[in-house]
């Protein structure tokens, strides 16, 4: 009879990961959260922007990536509102409009009540990706003639003095793919020299991180739930990302242990196979 070890039933792996995620969510462990340079750069950008400055926040994601990106957007918006910046929301993804609305509804439930039209405004969705961004860069008011409520741009106090993209102190893109943060870098920063920053899903972070470079194509980046948790830690307002970080760490520990066990099994089976071959 062969001594080869059979692979572990994948359902046991699912169960282990499920328990590893569920328990730390229910029983708070409170593992420390360390901040990284990329997140600090985003924080510094928002922190150093003067009060009353118009800032553009682009919602380029939908509910499928909400657990990762929504906490990032909430944390950055809370920070920008605390600094009394005027938040102009727009979306390159159709569902982004609702994501923005949902965040301000949540803030209202928490007691943070910015005045619509003066402190923030939702300009809605624009199709066309980079082509639309190029048009926004040239003349914001030609692309967005009114907000989602139908109010004309001239009647929106938050937009006073805003003519083109260069009138915004920074652009923050919360992006789950294309069009998203990459297009903002290409057009917003590289064509119009506006500081661009934002947050992405952990899956897309490796492809976007090269833009955080000497040329400052991106001013920092929030990567996945970890980025959101770091930002929540920096502004001192723990949210759903902080709540999820214990679970994230435990799940990673389980994955690391399973990878080590899998590798030990691989080398063990290789040795057994070689011995069985030699015996034949």
């Amino acid at each position, binding site marked *: 009879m062969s001594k080869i070890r059979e692979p572990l039933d994948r359902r046991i792996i699912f169960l282990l990961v499920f328990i590893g995620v569920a328990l730390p969510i229910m029983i708070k462990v409170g593992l420390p959260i360390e901040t990284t340079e990329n997140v600090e750069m985003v924080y510094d950008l928002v922190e150093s922007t003067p009060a009353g400055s118009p800032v553009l926040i682009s919602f380029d994601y939908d509910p499928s990536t909400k657990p990762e990106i929504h906490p990032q957007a909430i944390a950055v918006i809370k920070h920008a509102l605390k600094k009394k910046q005027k938040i102009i929301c727009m979306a390159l993804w*159709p569902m982004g409009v609702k994501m923005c609305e949902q965040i301000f509804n949540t803030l209202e439930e928490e007691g943070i009540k910015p005045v619509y039209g003066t402190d923030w405004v939702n300009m809605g*969705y624009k199709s066309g990706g980079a082509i639309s961004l190029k048009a926004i860069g040239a003349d914001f008011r030609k692309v967005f003639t009114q907000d*989602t409520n*139908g109010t004309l741009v001239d009647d929106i106090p938050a937009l006073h003095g805003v003519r083109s993209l260069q009138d915004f102190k920074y652009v923050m893109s919360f992006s789950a793919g294309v069009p998203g943060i990459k297009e903002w870098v*290409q057009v917003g920063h*590289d064509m119009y020299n506006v500081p661009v920053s934002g947050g992405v899903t952990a899956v897309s972070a*490796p492809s976007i991180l090269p833009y955080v470079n000497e040329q400052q194509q991106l001013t920092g980046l929030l990567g*996945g739930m*970890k980025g959101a948790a770091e930002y929540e830690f920096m502004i001192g307002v723990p949210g759903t990302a902080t709540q999820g970080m214990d679970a*994230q760490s435990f799940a990673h520990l389980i994955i690391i242990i399973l990878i080590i066990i899998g590798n030990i099994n691989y080398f063990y089976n290789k040795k057994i196979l070689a011995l069985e071959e030699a015996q034949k």
Partner: protein
Amino acid sequence: MISFFETLGVWLGALMTFAIFSFLYKDNPFYKVAEQIFVGLSAGYWFVYTIYNIVLPNLIIPLKTDFSANFLLIVPGILGIFMLMRIIPQTEWLSRFPMALMIGSSAGLGMLTYTKSDIIKQLTATMMNPFDGGDWIVILGQTLLILGTITGVIYFFFSARHKGFIGVLSRIGIYFLMVSFGGAFGYTAMARISLLIGRLQFLLGDWLGLIHP
């Protein structure tokens, strides 16, 4: 006060989550039902959403409120109708005009933006003095960045045989690529776990009320 429909929505969300999760055990009728409901609902929801959040605010309302300032929107409006003509075989040819416009403008802008952002700016960011940092960690990082970029590009240089000195550099390039694949895998694992955390926060918080943010 939570309304009846909110509670119903949370319960439906929880049941659908369990139905989808049941696939992890094995394929079953609950998963199939949830999958079909999702496909049908998505199609219907997107249709209504497109009308109310894309067509109306971007085309109809601007034309109705200020026609003289927005009359040019009629052009993309007509091109959009041309696009829908694909449904009828006799008028399918009309969809070529908006397609040609989209492909042409995207390709033209893409050439400009990618050359500037992904070639020139990225190359410029790599052209640095690696020892100009002070901190040894920064110096090490900058050195690895330059070494990784050069050896990585050499690995994809196919006009010379990967032997001798070129072979060594190409081999180093592979190691850099492997490290980047490992990093990408780590990030992917993190992303998937984050989605599971999101679902469990919904189940344990919104549904069961066991946790509070």
